[in-house]
């Protein structure tokens, strides 16, 4: 016997969680663009989407975030430290690749510095993931040693029932168990069969790629220029990526008042490594693309023993010129042979 949640009870679950003061987030669509939004009822959720356009990371690492404020008066100076908002949250209907992505970034944000802005939100959130029964041409979690029902980064994993009327429920962490305890009367016991997970073919040989990338000989390879010739250097592949985490700290304001903010940044931009002298060590777009691949599959993997990519495929899906990491790693795989 397994624990089941029937779709018919989802609305009551959301109501129960909200009564307990939890905010409930899930995949929803506004202005034609899907992302994770706060929802009040099950009807607002878009659970049939393979993946949302924007990623889960926005809930932990917003596009722009105030950190400090100042105001200079005639007699005094006032300063203010902005803290991430308080409040516990349930994030329902996350895909396993996005959940795994948050765990990848945990390593980064707790490395030389423990980033409160990230961890306050992480520590007050419960991630309820749903295993994928559908995938599209861009999905490639299996190439990154993950799977459509991976449990990495999730507090609860739901497996869709074959009949399409609910999910089999599995708590993975204490936080997950607590979230389920508050809806226990809405959960049922049953032996309903679950639907098979999506078939996601492996697209490249990750280990072969990693050893090619780790070889210093290949840093200056012509390959980089050829593969990235059409890249226009928009940052959308990095901004839509669940694991990209680069940010810039900017002061906005004037002599009398202002705010210091943490804003997204991207290695695809020419300004990213520009020195004050005017020299740019990554002067070309191909050097920037190399950085993106090297960072994700070489430097990050060596440092944290995990790749900074979970195979969600967004970088290819949304690239205006049809690039993305998949093609580059596929090409590197073939260079091996």
């Amino acid at each position: 016997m397994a624990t089941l949640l029937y779709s018919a009870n989802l609305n009551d679950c959301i109501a129960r969680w909200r009564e307990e003061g939890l905010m409930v987030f899930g995949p929803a669509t506004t202005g034609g663009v899907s992302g994770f939004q706060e929802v009040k009822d099950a009807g607002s959720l878009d659970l049939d989407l393979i993946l949302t356009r924007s990623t889960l990371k926005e809930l932990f690492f917003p596009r722009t975030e105030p950190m400090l404020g100042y105001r200079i008066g005639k007699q005094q100076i006032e300063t203010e430290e902005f803290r991430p908002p308080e409040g516990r949250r349930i994030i329902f209907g996350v895909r396993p690749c996005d959940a795994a992505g948050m765990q990848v970034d945990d390593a980064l944000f707790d490395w030389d510095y423990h980033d409160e802005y990230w961890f306050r939100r992480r520590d007050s959130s419960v991630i309820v993931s749903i295993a994928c029964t559908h995938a599209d041409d861009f999905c490639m979690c299996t190439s990154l040693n993950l799977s459509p029902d991976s449990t990495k980064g999730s507090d609860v994993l739901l497996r869709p029932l074959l009949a399409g009327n609910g999910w089999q429920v599995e708590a993975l962490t204490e936080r997950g168990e607590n979230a389920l305890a508050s809806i226990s009367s809405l959960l049922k016991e049953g032996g309903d069969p679950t639907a098979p997970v999506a078939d996601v073919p492996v697209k490249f040989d990750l280990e072969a790629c990693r050893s090619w990338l780790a070889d210093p000989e290949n840093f200056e390879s012509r390959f980089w220029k050829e593969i990235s010739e059409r890249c226009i250097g928009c940052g959308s592949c990095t901004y839509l990526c669940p694991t990209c985490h680069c940010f810039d700290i900017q002061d906005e304001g004037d002599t009398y008042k202002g705010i210091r903010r943490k804003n997204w940044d991207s290695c695809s931009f020419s300004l990213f490594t520009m020195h004050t002298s005017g020299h740019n060590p990554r002067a070309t777009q191909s050097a920037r693309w190399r950085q993106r691949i090297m960072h994700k599959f070489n430097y990050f993997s060596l440092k944290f023993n995990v790749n900074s990519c979970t195979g969600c495929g967004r970088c290819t899906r949304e690239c205006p010129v049809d690039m993305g990491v998949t093609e580059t790693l596929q090409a590197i795989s073939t260079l091996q042979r």
Partner: protein
Amino acid sequence: MSIQEHYRSRAKELLSAGTVKMVIGYGAGSTPDRRRPVFITSPDEADRLVLDTTCRTNLSGYLLREGLLSDQKQVAVFLTVDGIRSLNVLAAESQLDTSQVLVFGFGIEGDQARAIEGERAADFKSVIAAAKEQRKSQPADELQEKLEAMTPKERFSFWEGEFSRCIKCYACRQACPMCWCRRCVVDNNQPQWVNTSSHTLGNLEWNLLRAFHLAGRCVECGNCSRACPADIPLHLLNRRMADEVQASFDHYPGMDEAQEPVLASFRKDDPETFIL
């Protein structure tokens, strides 16, 4: 011979003879319905070129790649009428020399791609003139009419809502052939003229600034809207600006390379309705 075969053999011919050093065109993409820009430099690669109704990207921006045209050699590029107009604007703004560019012109009509006669930017004058006339009689689309009917306040909140989704990736700028500045004003941080933050004010500043910089220069190719990951209907802003410059100055950007940019030129008969 299909248009695709026609241009493949023309590309082979030009590359074999050494007339052009590169053909910038479209090739197969990562899925059957996708096309991507390709850069062909040898005759035996010419069979990778694809031309059909899915080829939408305006490729003229790639001509500005650093160093590409600095050796005085010629490059051939696939362009629609919009693309040829952007080529003319780039030449008018001294960004390239059209004598180095060979045009593989094409148009998309219904479910077919058709070749347009001509090979030099100047050969397409009458086609561009016809496009100008056609634009005058083109009806506004539904959303545009809705916007026109709104009060300024309603319109402002419409755009505020749209821009709130902007993630400041600058894909619109990077995809736009007319955004050729080596250093964009938003990338100037000493001083920082425009907020880099993706909050309401920062997003408004960015999107309005770009719309104004494109006034009288945008050729309505749609690259920006197609590239925007937030699906912001940027073409509506551009279109409104284009309507304005056409109505006030009878200016249709990209007529030819001698055309003066509307905001950088002065004529005695300019209406000057905004000067008291």
